């Protein structure tokens, strides 16, 4: 099936700085796609290229098989929700929302009707007469959304729209965005640096770093099966242990590390034996045994115990892996109540919970 939008090998430079390096992205109809990356990764540039605010230096931008490169901003069938909302403060909420129809020369009666409809959709039914300056952050956010959806675009671009909201409002707006996207059936391209937000909202996530795509896939797939060290540490926490691949047997691999020979599993093609690799183990998957009689696993000392509410984050130092801090996440229940810094424990993990990654060259 033809994708709705296709960034085909797109490159972008600012002067001598290469911000995007051969990016390939497809967006399907009705999809909630998140582009996730740290600041400076090029994610906002991707959005600005799709919106038409930036040109490209290489590659093509295709919409339903049509080249969009020469199509100006105001002729593209997309609308944007800006990070700072960019509301028109001299206009009322209704005038802001109706702006897209007004500049298309639609009759006043039709505009009024559509504005009322869209304001209802975003839950601002009675506030059309207000000025944006007198509204809360969450309400302005909804005005910006209403303004973007009224022209019935094929795609909505959202540039970190929740970053200015406080935690509680943010969670509420996340649920709202997700349900709105399902109701409208419009594809959303959502930009964020917040991995939890990306996991909670998206059908698919594209992780970008330094102008390149690290990995893409469904949130669960990316979380469970990171393929690059960057994805492994950016999407949730991971303990990364360096080593050299010793042998591969199907999905099961053995890796020589400072702590001896450890088992791991690999997804997809395995690197060649002898190459530098990393073991990635989630903090929640590290086994911890405080019983002094235990003989299994690596001996370690508790360096720090941090109470995080529902969870406890325990940091371990093991002489087997000098310089490494092993993070362990546990529910804050009785099992960890007695752990204090200085206590001796043993740690380990199931081979299935240790993902094998190719080390960064």
């Amino acid at each position: 099936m033809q994708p709705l939008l296709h960034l085909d090998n797109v490159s972008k430079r600012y002067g001598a700085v290469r911000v995007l390096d051969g990016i390939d992205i497809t967006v399907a109809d009705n999809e909630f796609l998140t582009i996730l990356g740290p600041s400076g990764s090029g994610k906002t540039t991707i959005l600005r290229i799709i919106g038409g605010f930036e040109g490209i230096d290489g590659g093509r931008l295709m919409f339903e098989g049509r080249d969009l490169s020469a199509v100006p901003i105001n002729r593209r069938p997309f609308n944007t929700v800006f990070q700072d909302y960019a509301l028109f403060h001299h206009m009322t909420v209704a005038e802001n929302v109706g702006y897209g129809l007004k500049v298309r020369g639609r009759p006043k009666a039709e505009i009024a009707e559509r504005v009322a409809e869209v304001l209802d959709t975003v839950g601002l039914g009675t506030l059309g007469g207000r000025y944006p300056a007198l509204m809360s952050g969450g309400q302005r956010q909804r005005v910006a959304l209403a303004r973007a959806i009224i022209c019935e675009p094929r795609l909505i671009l959202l540039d970190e729209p929740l970053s200015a909201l406080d935690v509680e409002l943010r969670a509420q707006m996340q649920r709202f965005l997700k349900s709105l996207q399902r109701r409208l059936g419009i594809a959303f391209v959502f930009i964020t640096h917040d991995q939890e937000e990306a996991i909670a909202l998206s059908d698919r996530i594209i992780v970008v770093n330094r102008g390149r795509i690290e990995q893409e896939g469904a949130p669960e797939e990316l979380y469970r099966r990171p393929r690059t060290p960057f994805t492994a540490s950016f999407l949730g926490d991971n303990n990364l242990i360096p080593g050299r691949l010793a042998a591969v047997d199907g999905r099961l691999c053995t890796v020589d590390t400072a702590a001896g020979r450890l088992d791991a599993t690999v997804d997809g093609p395995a690197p060649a034996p002898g190459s530098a690799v990393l073991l990635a183990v989630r903090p929640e998957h590290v086994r911890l045994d405080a019983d002094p009689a235990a003989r299994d696993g690596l001996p370690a000392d508790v360096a720090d115990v941090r109470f995080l509410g529902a969870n406890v984050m325990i940091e371990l130092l093991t002489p087997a892996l000098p310089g490494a801090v092993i993070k362990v996440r546990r529910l804050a229940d009785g099992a960890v109540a007695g752990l204090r810094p200085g206590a001796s424990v043993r740690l380990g993990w199931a081979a299935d919970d240790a993902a094998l990654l190719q080390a960064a060259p």
Partner: protein
Amino acid sequence: MKQKAPCLDALLGLVAGLGLIALYAPLLATGALSFFQIVRVRGTLGFAPFSLDPYVALLANGEILAALSTSLVVATVSSLLALVLALMFAFYFVSARRGLGIAMQIMVFLPFLLPPIITGLSLLIAFREIDLGRGLVTIIIAHVVFIVPVVYRTVLVRLQLLGSSLTEASLDLGASRVQTLRYVILPQLRPALISGVLLAFAISFDETLITLFVAGSQTTLPIRLWAMMRVGFVPEINALATLIFLCTAAITFAIGLMQRAGERV
């Protein structure tokens, strides 16, 4: 929290107060003397009782009224022309490459920063070279050259504050460049446009030195005032000075209000 220093505050207040008195006492004296004329009664000086005679004489003076109307025409036309030019310069500055924008900006500011006598002389020579007879047109051109920087500065500050995101949002919603200018940019600039024009109007209304070079047989109000003082002092001068002061103060007050309105938006 800043520590309070009552002594220092009192001293600052005193200095500021003295400064204000030094600045405004001559103006107050002029105003007072326009209502209470100094008269000589049997060899000693004294004040005549309150009278509006100088104002009546002023209104009966056809030459002054003619000069006033010239000044109003010049100030109105030149500040509106300056507005159009300043808008174009400001848009150019925010969209052009940095070096070109700065070069343009220096050229806009130079006539304002040069000593007026140089600007006036240069204009005079230029008008002679292109054979443009001195009169209303040359006065207006000279004033536009002089006040464009003032309007330009006011508009540019506001335009830079707006940034590019409102323009992008408007284009994103399908508006053309012209629609964006009309529905988004100009309404957002309105307070700056009005205060810029008022400021330009006040400066044009008071401008004397450059005008002297290019006026020819035309007479603006400040030039009339200057001419009256050269032939001898009459009480109308106090009345006229007081009126000009009050008008300028009113415009300044209006500018202050517009700028407050601009900050709120």
